[in-house]
């Protein structure tokens, strides 16, 4: 079972989005899921704190959103598929968030990807 594996046999730098994380992250993920709709993105932009409050994010999640901190979002139960919609509000793609999570510059992160071909 992946839940047991995630605890007993962790993979470094990797989050298994199991029941425990899904429970912890429900409000955060629900907010990010809402960003599928342009009107929701606009409402978030107008007043971020009010929008977070509307979905009932906890303090840890609100701080992660405020700081645009993807690793903190993952730790507080965020799922990358929903978080990607949050990143999209700022025109950030998966390479931008990859660079942020690995502490690399975007160019260095791209070079790392290209190097995997060899």
């Amino acid at each position: 079972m992946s839940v047991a594996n995630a605890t007993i046999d962790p993979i470094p730098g990797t989050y298994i989005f199991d029941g425990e994380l899904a429970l912890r992250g429900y409000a955060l993920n629900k907010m990010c899921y809402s960003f599928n709709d342009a009107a929701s993105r606009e409402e978030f932009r107008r007043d971020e704190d009010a929008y977070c409050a509307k979905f009932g994010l906890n303090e840890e999640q609100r701080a992660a959103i405020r700081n645009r901190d993807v690793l903190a979002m993952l730790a507080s139960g965020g799922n990358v598929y929903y978080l990607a919609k949050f990143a999209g509000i700022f025109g950030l793609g998966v390479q931008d968030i990859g660079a942020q999570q690995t502490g690399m510059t975007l160019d260095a992160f791209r070079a790392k990807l290209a190097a995997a071909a060899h």
Partner: protein
Amino acid sequence: MATLVGGVCTSHIPAIGNAIARGLEDEPYWRPFFAGYPPVRKWLEATRPDVAVVIYNDHGLNFFLDNLPTFAVGAAQQYSNADEGWGLPTLAPYPGDPRFSWHIIESLVRDEFDVATCQEMRVDHAFTVPQALLWPGGTRPVRTVPIAVNTVQHPLPTPARCFKLGQALGRAIASYPDNSRVVAIATGGLSHQLDGERAGFINKQFDLMCLDKIVEDPHALTQYSIHDLVRLAGTQGVELIMWLVLRGAMTTRVRQLHRHYHIPVSNTAAGLLLLENAA
């Protein structure tokens, strides 16, 4: 009876859709990736399927965690698309084939795969990008049956279970009392990881082994657990399970007509396989 004319396994990265929308196919970054597709387009022109069964994973466009099916089959007249939160260009709807969908649903449930059924279903890049690659220019030459496999919320269905779903899907297609020519399309993979400190993980050696085994010995891949696949192929590399559904739908032996592999497209190792039933 309906005929499964072949199977196409392909990656489905959203950046491909943007590259197509912006006409970047011949740019140096993109050319080696798009170079893989003309042989499959030619095969499709020659084979002329009427309907595509598209096995893919939704990335939080249609399904949320409030109600997330492990396997879901679309049964709609048409399937609409959306910008997914990134401002992607929204594409024209895709025609469905509800009669075929309901035959597949009846057959799968009789075969003990208790799928969710969807008369409304928004389809994301995992459904649209492969079709844009296979049928350029936004044409809609095939009716579609979407089959969504959960890769969002663990536990995910095991590789072995996905292969068995494919076997049941193969029986469903073969028992459809209609002369439809069916192509199966599996989308996703190969190795990639978007999240965590290990973001950017790619495993070429493992991918190349998977490409071999999908063709020659898919049972070898069904021995892996989801956790094994996350370790070896990355958190999103688990999308290999879609390829296993497709492979299960085909005959024990298959002919590989075409293969392509390219690193990187965005954060992903892109793979492509074209298969025909052999026996």
